[in-house]
């Protein structure tokens, strides 16, 4: 197989999906952000965003912390060490492939 095609095939599919790519890229640039911020920045609806976050959490890429801001529930999200590493790797492979 063409080495470029092989690199493309090796891309992390969990991150490569556009919605999750947006979430991971936004979280990569910060220490922590809440659900509302991701919803505002990505424009993804609540249900789809929750589903993407659940997939990233299951893979160990994102850490989810349920807390309260005053009396209002707040969901805080941050990228784990593994998540950071995988995103870095994903960008490196993407650069190589294209």
């Amino acid at each position, binding site marked *: 197989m063409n080495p470029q095609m092989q690199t493309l095939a090796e891309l992390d599919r969990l991150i490569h999906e556009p919605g999750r*790519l*947006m979430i991971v*890229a*936004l979280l*990569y*640039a*910060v*220490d*922590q*952000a*809440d*659900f*509302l*911020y*991701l*919803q*505002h*920045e990505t424009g993804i609806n*609540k249900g789809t965003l929750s589903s993407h976050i659940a997939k990233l959490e299951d893979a160990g890429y994102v850490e989810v912390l349920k807390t309260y*801001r005053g*009396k*209002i*529930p*707040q*969901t*805080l999200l941050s990228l784990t060490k593994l998540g950071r590493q995988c995103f870095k790797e994903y*960008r490196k492979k*993407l*650069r190589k492939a*294209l």
Partner: protein
Amino acid sequence: MQQIQTPIQSLLGRPRNYNNIDGMGEISVGLILLGFALSFWMQIHTALHSLWNRSFASILSMLALCLALHYGIKGFKQKITFPRTGFVRYRATSVWYVLVSAGTTAATAVLIIRNLRHLLDSASAMGFLYALFMAVCYGYGIARAVPWKWLVASAIFLSGTVVALLPSTVFQPLFAGSPRAHDPTVGLLVALFPYFLVWSPLLLLSGLISLALYLRNTTAPASDTQ
């Protein structure tokens, strides 16, 4: 490659731009410049042995202003911005990164000034360079994210250039009657004063427009969505 990498780059830069989504970044810089201008004004227009001419007084007043802005903006973000468009905690910048960046910037500035000294002999040339520097910093830091802010960047550059080109006699009435108007130790303050006086209202106005647009276009969602 550009087609995919550019949106990723843009996403990586969005949290940084979010810091000024409510105009608070510009308002705070505008208030700091205004604070500097007022502090200079007090130093120049008060007696030589007054409290304002003690170095600790100006340092303390600026420190108080910075603390008030820090906690004021923090309170505003917690009460208004985070409930409307979400909370972000930025990654801590390492001390080494800050030191290396500051050192590199200072070294570059020294190199430029040393090499272009023959061109920078006049206050006008220095003022022009200062206006260009401010406009570039503003453009890079703020206007890249909000296209209409390029007008503000242009206004910063043009107003700075006008101040630089005007003869110094135009600003002399501002310091008329001052006991320190001809004191060489406050020469830099006298030279910077008009720039701060022109740029602070520009930044405050731009920040207030952003704040008004932000408040008009956003509302806090129902509590269960956060």
